[in-house]
């Protein structure tokens, strides 16, 4: 009962159990935290708006994105993954979500920012339904913790629309 192997086994089991409990409590502490983020997106310019040879609409736009996401950071936050997606409805699809731009915010200091950018990923529809269509721009964030449960939420900004004609 007192040999080296039994003592080592007991020590290892105990330390792994304690580590697991600590990780669980760390993750639970994230639930006590209520964030209050804010964001604004302006579409500065529709650079071009064309129909591809395969028949899908494609648009390129330039946006001003400003946000203050500092309240989302806790002691258990490793990084914040944020992205801006355009959401719209078409006759065939009840929902389309296209990610236009994303970024990784590694720390609280970087969480308050302003950026002027064109879309990082190609905005291609499944079809040619975009002319004159209204769409929402949503800023999503995914909190990636140092350990435990991941959270995600978003801010929906409405009122954007495509031009009536290709250009």
């Amino acid at each position: 009962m007192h040999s080296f192997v039994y003592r080592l086994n007991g020590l290892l089991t105990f330390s792994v159990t304690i580590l697991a409990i600590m990780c669980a409590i760390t993750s639970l502490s994230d639930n006590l935290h209520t964030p209050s983020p804010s964001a604004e997106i302006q579409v500065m310019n529709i650079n071009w708006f064309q129909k591809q040879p395969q028949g899908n609409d494609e648009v390129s736009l330039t946006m001003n994105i400003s946000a203050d996401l500092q309240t989302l950071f806790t002691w258990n936050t490793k990084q914040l993954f944020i992205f801006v997606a355009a959401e719209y409805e078409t006759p065939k699809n009840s929902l389309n979500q296209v990610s236009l731009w994303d970024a990784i915010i590694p720390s609280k200091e970087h969480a308050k920012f302003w950026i002027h950018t064109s879309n990082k990923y190609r905005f291609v529809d499944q079809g040619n339904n975009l002319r004159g269509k209204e769409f929402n721009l949503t800023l999503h964030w995914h909190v990636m913790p140092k350990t435990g449960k991941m959270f995600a939420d978003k801010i929906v900004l409405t009122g954007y629309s495509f031009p009536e004609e290709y250009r």
Partner: protein
Amino acid sequence: MGWIGDTVDSVKSIQIRQLLTQAVSLGMIVTSALIIWKGLMCITGSESPVVVVLSGSMEPGFKRGDILFLHMSKDPIRAGEIVVFNIDGREIPIVHRVIKVHERKDTGEVDVLTKGDNNYGDDRLLYAQGQLYLQRNHIMGRAVGFLPYVGWVTIIMTEKPIIKYILIGALGLLVITSKD
């Protein structure tokens, strides 16, 4: 006939009862591990409720060696979720983020495009020939939580199988030679 009687005596002296008890307790350990695994599969609704991150395509969020807890619910798949999926013809599951969603009005089915955070382009290069989107049946689960570094045990055992054999051999030896 004398030596047959001697052999039978020496076989009886191994204490059949003790051997059987040890075999049963070993079987209990293996079966309870299996019960826990299958129970997790039922609770999370996913074929493999825990996966190990094998590549660096989701850095700096998930590094090689982290483990991810998966959950599959009937909720629709939305942009930004981290999903684990299998490509037809490939056995290794891939953990990437959804960047495009097209959900059909009539059937509720969904076309999904994924991309690793640390990759430059989307995953169309990884999909099967001619496949432009993933469907729900390709997706094994959503990542809902993670633990860092714990998956290195699995990676080491897969890449250097000799360690797996040594571990199992040592465990087996320990069970057989323990007196209680």
